[in-house]
């Protein structure tokens, strides 16, 4: 695996107010590969993934140290335009969150905001991205219906299509399958394998089998309460799961953590 590094976390720490949620994390994100972040609840993995498109700042006042870079440029630098950053680094959330609009409007939403006016181009985009997430055949006859009429798994695929519609380089997925049934989960996983050819994916997951199945690299966050938000081990997924270097990792992936 010799893919170039697209994003990189360099000794990155982030605090809400004065409380550090993640500390001194250094790891590379390789282009066109899937990087999984695993670890127990409360270990800071959701905070960490939201640091890649600076979503944490929406909720509360945050402080950070270190850097996260995108194509070599620090995304926390003063001259960074958040709008352009979030266009390049898209996100899919834990709970499917389609907008209260029609299926088609959900896809058109991003491109419209970013200046696409042509009706026919927008219609083409709807088909293109719905096909990309393998939803087209299921919804092509009801594009004008509310996105809420879809099942949870379909909604999540719609949200992935919506995130793709602004052509991001990186897709952040924060436990995208935790609210879905196993069949819907498998569909999303297949989809991620397809998307990997065109886009770089970072996924947070509770489900270790999922990380093992789909990711190329895995980052394991600590289980120890005294070291909140620290990275224990990072490496090629196969190595992490078959030959972990740290005892904590071994314990966690074999289900003996704590």
């Amino acid at each position, binding site marked *: 695996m010799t893919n170039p590094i697209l994003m990189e976390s360099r000794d990155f720490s982030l605090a809400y107010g004065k409380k550090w949620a993640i500390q001194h994390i250094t790891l590379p994100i390789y282009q066109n590969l899937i990087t999984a972040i695993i670890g127990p609840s409360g270990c800071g993995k959701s905070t960490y993934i939201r640091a890649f498109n600076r*979503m944490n700042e929406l909720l509360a006042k945050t402080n950070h140290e270190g850097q996260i870079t995108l194509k070599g440029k620090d995304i926390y630098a003063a001259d960074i335009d958040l709008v352009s950053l979030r266009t390049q680094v898209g996100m899919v959330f834990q709970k499917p969150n389609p907008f209260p609009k029609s299926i088609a409007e959900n896809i058109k*939403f991003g491109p419209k905001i*970013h200046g696409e006016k042509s009706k026919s181009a927008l219609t083409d985009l709807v088909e293109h991205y719905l096909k990309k997430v393998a939803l087209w055949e299921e919804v092509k006859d009801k594009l004008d219906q509310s996105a809420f009429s879809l099942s949870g798994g379909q909604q999540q695929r719609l949200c992935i299509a919506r995130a793709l519609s602004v052509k991001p380089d990186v897709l952040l997925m924060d436990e995208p399958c935790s609210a879905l049934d196993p069949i819907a989960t498998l569909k999303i996983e297949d989809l991620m394998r397809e998307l990997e050819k065109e886009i770089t994916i970072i996924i947070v997951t509770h489900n270790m089998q999922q990380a093992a199945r789909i990711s190329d690299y895995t980052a394991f966050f600590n289980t120890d309460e005294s070291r909140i938000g620290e990275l224990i081990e990072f490496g090629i997924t196969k190595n992490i799961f078959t030959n972990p270097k740290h005892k904590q990792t071994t314990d966690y992936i074999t289900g003996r953590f704590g």
Partner: protein
Amino acid sequence: MSSLRKPIIEKLTYGLLGGSFGLVFLCLVLILGIIFYNSVGTLSLSFLLQNPTDGMTKGGIFPIMVGTIYVTLISAIMSVPFGVFTAIYLNEYASDNAYTRLIRLSIRNLAAVPSIVYGLFGLAIFVKALNFGTCVLSAGLTLGLLSLPVIIAASEEALRNVPSSYRDGAFALGLTQWQVLRKNVIPVAIPGILTGVILGISRAMGETAPILFTGVAFFLPETSLSLSSQFMALPYHLYIMSTQHHDIDGVRGIAYSTAAVLIILSLGLNIIASLIRYTYQKGQQT
């Protein structure tokens, strides 16, 4: 024991809740019934379209209705934009700290301040300090202040109830804060905001105390739409007709009809609000 006691408690609770509802419903029916029953014979189309005549013992309430609608319009022009904008600022832009919480609390409390206090404030500020005089502008602005806290509180509530996932999703697509608000938050909050706006406006429309010192007149021979002229208003007319008139028993019909018109206007506003809400919600589901 508990299996015996349970059904009794269930029945008592049901009786209490149902009884309360029944009592409230009865009061409502009685109020509406008495008012409309007593306005029979007076309330008619010509009552709505005529000027009062013969020392206000005959004729209609046309200029009085116009006055009420006019002063309510002035108050709405002032309070709706300021109220909604303030709510948007407080909920979306202002940081949540001790100051904003204090301001929010103060706004809530303002909603409970007796309306006569607003009247005095209006007299001191608009009539005297700003030297507008007793006129429809002073009265409208005073009523606007009265409805501001209701509009702000309800609009903020509506904005707060928009699921945060709509915001997150939109931010993650690279929208600016204003785009997120305009495209994803405000459209969802509009029904709630409208409800607050209508509540605030209809409260202002029915108030007497705030306009008492600031611009309302008992009787004006001519209707003027100048901002600096005085005006007649339904609630004040009702007050005069039922307590201050030289022939109170003779104008009972007029008093009750005025009350009926006030109720119908309020009801009309609320029906409009419901229609708008309904249209919006329908639009969003498709």
